């Protein structure tokens, strides 16, 4: 089966290594990156179906990464994952905001929903 690919970005290694198997369990192929720079490198090297990024990271934030990504790959859906209480101001390039406290099942459901919406949009525009 051809798995959809999710690129997971987070500066916290533990979080990243636990989020990866949860998403894999839901049937996705998961790539990881520890920073915005690393994420851009991965995106340049291979096809990715969804970007799931943390918000607060040293260097570029998740929303700054989303802006850079949408400049190059405007159709790539971006989910911002965050533990902060207030929604960042520069959300215009983010497709969905997911709180970290929603739990693994909710996260997987939202990833699936965004991917399915994106698929529909792609086939409609084709």
């Amino acid at each position: 089966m051809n798995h959809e690919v999710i690129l997971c970005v987070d500066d916290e290694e533990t979080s990243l290594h636990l989020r990866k198997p949860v998403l894999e369990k839901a049937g996705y192929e998961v790539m990881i990156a520890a920073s915005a720079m690393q994420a851009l490198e991965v995106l340049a090297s291979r096809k990715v179906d969804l970007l799931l990024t943390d918000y607060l990271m040293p260097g570029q934030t998740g929303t700054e990464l989303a802006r850079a990504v949408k400049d190059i790959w405007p159709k790539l859906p971006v989910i911002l994952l965050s533990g902060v209480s207030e929604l960042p101001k520069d959300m215009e390039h983010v497709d969905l905001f997911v709180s970290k406290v929603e739990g693994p099942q909710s996260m997987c459901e939202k990833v699936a929903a965004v991917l399915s919406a994106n698929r529909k949009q792609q086939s409609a525009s084709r």
Partner: protein
Amino acid sequence: MNASEKVNIVIVGKRVAKLASYEIMLRELRENVILAASAEEALQYLLQTDMAVVLLAVDNSERDAFNTANAIRQNSQETPIIFVLDAPLTDLEHYKDYRRGAVDFICAPVLPELLRNKVAIFADLQRKARQLETLRCELDLLSEAVIVSDGEGRIEFWNAGAETLYGWRREEVLGKHLDDVVPITFPVASGEVLATVISAGQWEGAVRRLNKGGQEITVALRKIQRSDGGGAILEMGQDISAQLQAEEALRQSERLAAIGRLAGVIAHEINNPLEAIANALFLVRCHPSLKGEAQRFARMAEKEVARIQHITQQTLSFYRESPAPISVSISSVLDDVLGLQARHLEINQIIVEKEYRDDMAIAGFPAELKQVFLNLIGNATQAMPQGGRLRISTRESRDYSSSRRGVRVAVCDTGSGIEAKDAKRLFEPFFTTKPNNGTGLGLWVSKGIIEKYQGTIRFRSLRLYDGHITCFAVFIPGAVVSHSLAQGAFSA
């Protein structure tokens, strides 16, 4: 009336020339001297204006003078009368009758110096009286309560400020004992205050006192012993109850703001590891190697983590699914929440009555609003474990205080009600009436969200003969009516 103004002196008599001569004698005093040829004329002046003194020129007819004095006395008890006699005062007994009206006598020959001196005394007296009157008016203008009590503690003076502050009218308290009228209840005994005033000359501090209605008010009080040796005590009091309440409210809001800031920091620091733990537990529970009891433990751990996540989600992560406010239909938010609660409502046998008067849309964030109504409806559901009725109504309304237009949503239940002792603290963080079931954050968070919309959230709990009715009313300003809805009721 200005205390330094000229005073009025009236000279009454039949012989104009005599009156004129007296007037010339008094000219040096630079007061207003008025001549009156008859008692009637003098009385007219007396009725129009205050007189410092009346000089009554007594002619041959003593009877006339007596009548004039009597008439003046009847109409103006306060005005002093000096009899100016034509003849030397020979028979004191003879003038006894006049004593009633006269304060002084001047006998012929009238010496200008003597006349001036005597009149000047009364002019000064009048000026002093005016000063006192002015002072009394000024004391009444003060918002402070000014009270003078004598050496025995009996009230001699009580200004308008004292009337306002303590509720007692001047005439009700004059002559009464200060401690009986406005007793000090806290923090020191009245006797102790008095002892300090007597020994140190003054006392200053904040006290609680009972007003006429028996309510305690907090008064900033200053008591001074008057230096005239009579032991009289002057006190000035100012109501600081409102000020203290405002300070307390400020402290409270600062405390809440600090909690809010702390919450923001904790949000990041707790939610990150919490997500990792939740993911790890999820993976552990789903791991094929995990069997029986271990799996049960993992599930328990997962449940407890979910509980923590619920707390942090209520408090620390007011996330919004859209970056800018969007048009939110109030009735669809309510229906979503009812949908989420459907199972609880069904299990608890709760009948839901919906009365959406108008379907209104407001600019906002659906998740936040959902959170508010989920809290209110969730609380109502939990208050009715034995079943009951849940009534949800919406209508277009105006804010009671600002009269801004908006939408009012009422969530009413027939549950266990709110006890009076809990009512004040209901919106405090971590205050809960459900120790096993609640985090004490739901209403606090809901209030915060509604206040962000510049709305209000209020409640009432009524005890009826067969139970309680509790209503929470949320008002959100700026609502737009989109279209009318049919009323409906359903049983969940």
